[in-house]
């Protein structure tokens, strides 16, 4: 026991935590400042006046009061993106290949988790569950989703990517797009054959929908309550746990060392006695498990899932991975958080700032615009300076 405790690399446990806190706080502060400056400027214009007439409150106050809620929402979705982005980034780091099907791995995880819970619900187990058992069932669903997604990711790599490993760059990418499409309809096929429905709803149980009230604020004549739903807390806490665990696996264990070696150079790693194929499978397994867990968390947060649920989160997580510097794990964390925050801030404030001309519906475009801007001005990403660009 003592030796085991001694073998734990404490700094590697603390470092990612510190990074997460730093990134979250930093992004929140920077974005809030930008939004507030905008609000101050627009307050004098017709935008501010319109809002004042409608809600009897200045734009600046309105912005300020909404900030904490927006930041928490942004953080929640940011952590989900980060967890998916890690799957992209790990595979990219090892194979230099965009695993386009990762978004469907995520969707499969979400479906398996939700189906487990729906099955439990049908037997009446969920309804009478105590609070502790509710959390046990949730963890069961997450683990189920992780295992299914991880297994599927390994299978997909074995069938559709491994035969193409020495082909030119675009060949495995096209195959991955094919896998992505195939899986979308496979999910739909299975769902329509077994349940006859396209949408699945996350069952309500436990106390996940309750909100922890942090305080009340007056907004003109109305009161706004500030709160965090327990869902969001669960999402953030589980994502942080996974990210820390992954960081530990890669940076402080022997297997992790092998992964890093393979990422640097396949032939040399192979000469050092590392089974490259096994490490690549392992990478897909770990990435897929993270994606699957993120899928269940996503379903918990947004309740309704369908076969195409993976597409946008997957694309945004990829954007996040590129934003942070693809192939770089810390970068994926940063990218996920920044992107989730940016998107939520834009979605919440763009409508007010443009007087309803462009609102939440442009949220998705926003992510792509960021992707394009990053690729033009800093193709190596925010933290990707140390990643060599092989042609």
């Amino acid at each position: 026991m003592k030796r085991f405790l001694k073998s734990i690399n404490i700094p590697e446990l603390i470092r990612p935590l510190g990074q997460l806190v730093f990134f979250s706080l930093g992004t929140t502060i920077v974005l809030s400042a930008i939004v507030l400056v905008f609000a101050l400027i627009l307050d004098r214009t017709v935008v501010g006046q319109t809002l004042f007439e409608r809600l009897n409150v200045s734009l600046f106050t309105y912005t300020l009061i909404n900030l904490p809620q927006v930041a928490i929402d942004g953080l929640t979705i940011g952590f989900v993106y980060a967890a998916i982005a890690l799957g992209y980034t790990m595979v990219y780091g090892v194979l230099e290949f965009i695993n386009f099907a990762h978004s469907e791995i995520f969707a499969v995880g979400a479906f398996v988790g939700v189906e487990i819970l729906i099955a439990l619900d049908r037997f009446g187990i969920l309804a009478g569950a105590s609070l502790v058992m509710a959390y046990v069932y949730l963890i069961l669903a997450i683990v189920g989703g992780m295992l299914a997604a991880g297994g599927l990711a390994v299978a997909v790599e074995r069938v559709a990517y491994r035969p193409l490993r020495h082909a030119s760059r675009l060949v495995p990418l096209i195959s991955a797009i094919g896998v992505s499409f195939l899986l979308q309809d496979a999910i739909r096929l299975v769902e329509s054959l077994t349940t006859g429905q396209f949408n699945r709803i996350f069952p309500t149980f436990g106390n996940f929908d309750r909100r922890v009230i942090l305080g009340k604020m007056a907004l003109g004549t109305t009161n706004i309550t500030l709160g965090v739903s327990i869902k969001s807390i669960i999402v953030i806490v589980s994502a942080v746990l996974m990210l820390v665990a992954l960081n530990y696996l890669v940076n402080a264990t022997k297997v992790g060392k092998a992964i890093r070696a393979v990422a640097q150079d396949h032939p040399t790693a192979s000469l050092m006695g590392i089974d490259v194929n096994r490490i690549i499978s392992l990478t897909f397994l770990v990435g897929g498990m993270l994606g699957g867990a993120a899928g269940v968390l996503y379903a918990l947060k947004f309740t309704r899932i369908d076969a195409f649920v993976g597409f946008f989160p997957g694309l945004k997580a990829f954007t996040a991975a590129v934003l942070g510097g693809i192939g770089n794990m810390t970068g994926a964390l940063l990218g996920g958080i920044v992107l989730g925050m940016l998107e939520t801030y834009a979605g919440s404030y763009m409508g007010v700032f443009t007087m309803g001309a462009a609102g939440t519906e442009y949220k998705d475009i926003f992510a792509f615009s960021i992707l394009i801007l990053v690729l033009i001005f800093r193709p190596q990403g925010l933290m990707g300076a140390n990643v060599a660009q092989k042609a």
Partner: protein
Amino acid sequence: MIPHFFKDIITRLEQGIYPHIIILAHMVLGTALVYTSPRSNLAFLVLITSFFTLYYFKTDRRFKLIVGAVLTLFIFPVVGVRNIFYLEVIFQISVFAALALGLNIVVGFAGLLDLGYVAFYAVGAYLWAFFGSQQFYVLPFAPGTQPSNLPFLLPGDAFYLFMFIAILIAAITGILLGTPVLRLRGDYLAIVTLGFGEVIRVLANNLDKPLNFTNGPQGITPIQRPTMPLAAVDGFNALFGGLVGHDVSPADMYNVMFYLLALGVIIVIVFVTRRLDDSKIGRAWTAIREDETAAIAMGVPLVRMKLAAFAVGASFAGVMGVLLAGSRTFISPESFSFMQSIGVLSMVILGGSGSIPGVILGAATVTILNLQVLQGLSLYLSQLRQSDAVIPIINFAWANLSNQLDPAKYQRLLFGLILILMMIFRPEGLIPSQRRKRELAHDEDDNGK
């Protein structure tokens, strides 16, 4: 012994007068079958595949051209007017063949994976949808609130002009998108084009406020059809009326006209593509596709050549967009989803990227699978559902099968399977391009040494 025997027969059939006879026999058989049983899908397939026979057997050029012209200009319109569903299938094949040929320039020649190709298609379609409808006068109204008696902005004649304007506009869009992103490596480029495709779709969905440009998710309708000289209907009736068996209405004639327009575009594209392929630009594209670094070292202006590929590919999609808007008289963002882009990509990959006959074959195959095989399966399943048939061993009554199971909606499965299987087993496609063939032959020589 037996394979040898077959080989003998095939070599003999490929010589002398036999190819001519086989091609004509196939064509006549197909026509006769379709003519006698206008509802049969199988007969239609026999007719369509006569194109393949025409391509496969080596005969002199003139014979091929004449037979091809008879097939496309005479047999298809007549057969199509007799059963309008066939004409729809042929029209869709032509539209997708044109799109696939355009994408082929980007993916097959220059080796740039464009996952948002339908964005340019959308640009063309919305161009004519805006100028060829009442939409200009609807600008200040929210969707659904406009008065009903608005005039059309432009007359139907303008359609033909807009086919050329669309070339320009789509090419400019391609250059505008390409300029910033073409410096990127291939896989990043793929994702950015995907993003761009989504941006165009989201814009089309949401540009109904503050000014109503696109009418949002409801889409724009009615869109003007191009003016058609009345003489065309009379002429067609006078020429083919006896064969068709009834007089053709102007509405049917429109379908024929759009098919012929699409065919015209395809011919232009094939011509341009072939000329480009043998030109300095085409060789530059091949160089870029094979090895960017080496191409730069050889003095190929990388970004300019990539932009050219993007612009040429985009302009063809733009023209087809105008054609689509005119023929459907209705345009909505749904027609330009990511799935459409992948559908066109799978046609290119299936047929053989870089190969003109291959890409046309790919477009025809995927469209027929989509329109006839999947929909046929759907029909069959719904008939099974209504019957009281039971699967014997597992004792499953077809009537209990979920209503949601509709094979016609499983295009993604089809596209996905095509992409994966082709990449693993035959990445060069069904009909590899000549250059590819030559390269493969060289490889074998090298191995032989």
